[in-house]
């Protein structure tokens, strides 16, 4: 039986960019353990020599022309209309690089 540890839950939350409170960790740990334990039953299925299925359309490589379709293009205003965190018409994002501390 697989049992998730608190460290594993914290690691997963970090990978998924979720900040969890202590009470959330306490709540999710047994719930996730229960589900992980349940889905582990797939180990008993014989899958030897079976190809994996990622999709079921039977289609491969659907291409389109890489052309601007003006009828299906949002204006800059419409495209940025979902937020007021803008600077000169651009989205404002959090910094991913820190300033050098050795200068």
């Amino acid at each position, binding site marked *: 039986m697989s049992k998730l540890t608190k460290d594993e839950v914290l690691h997963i939350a970090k990978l998924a*960019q*979720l900040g969890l409170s202590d009470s959330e960790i306490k709540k999710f740990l047994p719930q996730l353990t*229960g589900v992980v334990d*349940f*889905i582990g*039953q797939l180990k008993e299925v014989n899958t030897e020599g079976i190809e994996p299925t990622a999709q079921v359309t039977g289609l491969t490589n659907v291409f389109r022309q890489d052309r601007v379709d003006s009828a299906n293009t949002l204006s800059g205003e419409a495209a940025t209309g979902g937020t007021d965190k803008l600077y000169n018409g651009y*989205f404002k994002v959090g910094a991913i690089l820190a300033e050098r501390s050795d200068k």
Partner: protein
Amino acid sequence: MDLPLTIKETQRGLIDKKFSAVELTDSYLERINKYNKEYNIFLTIAGEDAYKKAKETDKSEKKLPLAGVVAGYKDIFLTKGIRTTAGSKVLEGYIPPYSATAVARIEEAGAITIGKLNCDAWAHGSSGENSDFGPAKNPWNKKCTPGGSSSGSGAALSANMCLVTTGTDTCGSIRLPANYGYLVSLKPTYGAVSRYGVVAMASSLDCVGPLGHSVEDVETVFDVIKGGDGHDSTVVNRKPQALKSKFKIGIPKEFFVDGIDPEIQKTIDEAIQILKKEGVEFTEVSLPSTKYAISCYYIIQPAEVSSNLGKFDGIRYGNSRESFGDEAKRRIMLGTYVLSSGYYDAYYLTAMKVRTKICLETEKVFSEVDAMIAPVAPTPPFNLGEKTDNPLSMYLTDIYAATANLSGIPSLALPSGFSKKGLPLGFQLMGPRFSESNLFELGKKYHNAISYEPKVALK
């Protein structure tokens, strides 16, 4: 006024001037205003837009397939200029700059948009209780769930707040609300309808489909929304299967085992007898991997969820990731876990292989029969609050739904009657890919035989 319950009745009434589209809109809005506070079905009511379109409808001479039809959409369909939340606080104030293809096509076909319907946040759930805006209640019994995740899409029809609705089905989310609301609905073949403009849950499973009061209405809406739009590369423009004159239906033995409610078993047994009298042949078939379908689904789906919800960072629109509710967080973590280094092969890759087995088994069955009959859920509508503390028990609600999604086949949910407690009962008919036309044919045959009439709650 007595509101019509089918598209045909609606359009006849409009042509005969029994009522106008504005009067129809009035009546639906009256019911919404009367009951919505108590039943929490609409998240956004688009009264002004509805009246504008209704006035145009009354002036128009055009014969459109959905002229005068008042429609509501699950709140994960983007609607240009009308708030779209996906049932989540992350998108609490989001106003989309464009509409989903399904919505645009329904509107172009003449329908009047009346509002957006409650659902489990991000379509994660079977009861509607994962909505960040509180659960919708079942108009047939306020204590019960209307079924999820398209909870408002079912409840709005049961409460007669509009005539047709849309839903999405990743594992039963169109079929369960129909089943729990005495309604007809179609989970189409994967790739029959474009998902463009629909908030993605699990992209290899998600299907867009209609709910309504009759097979004819569901078929009409399906005909309006199906087919490629150039924006969803999974859509296949396949010719519908030719109509059959004789049918053979399989009864998958693995679906009729312990845990199925006796009243559901009975209603299906009766349906089989009724269809036999109509000349339909029945035979037992086997889908040996059925018991693994839900495990397989609860690996593939969270994996895709964790990827699809990765883009919600509150930068371009919406709120930050802190606004995700519990169930979204659980699924994001579960998906991240099964995809993470060291677990990928054991969980995700294995699930993809089990999916292949499930696909091969359904293919084999459909070389023997034209369709399969099965329950939609193991029980009639359950009480709100009954399964909320135990996610696993909630997941098992979808045990009969997973096969159709994993193998990409269509399934038609049909109402069949009511339980002793007065709760809706029904079943599903699954067919091979692109066999919708024949599922509709079977549905009509069954409903004709039982002299089916649409019914709504809250008189």
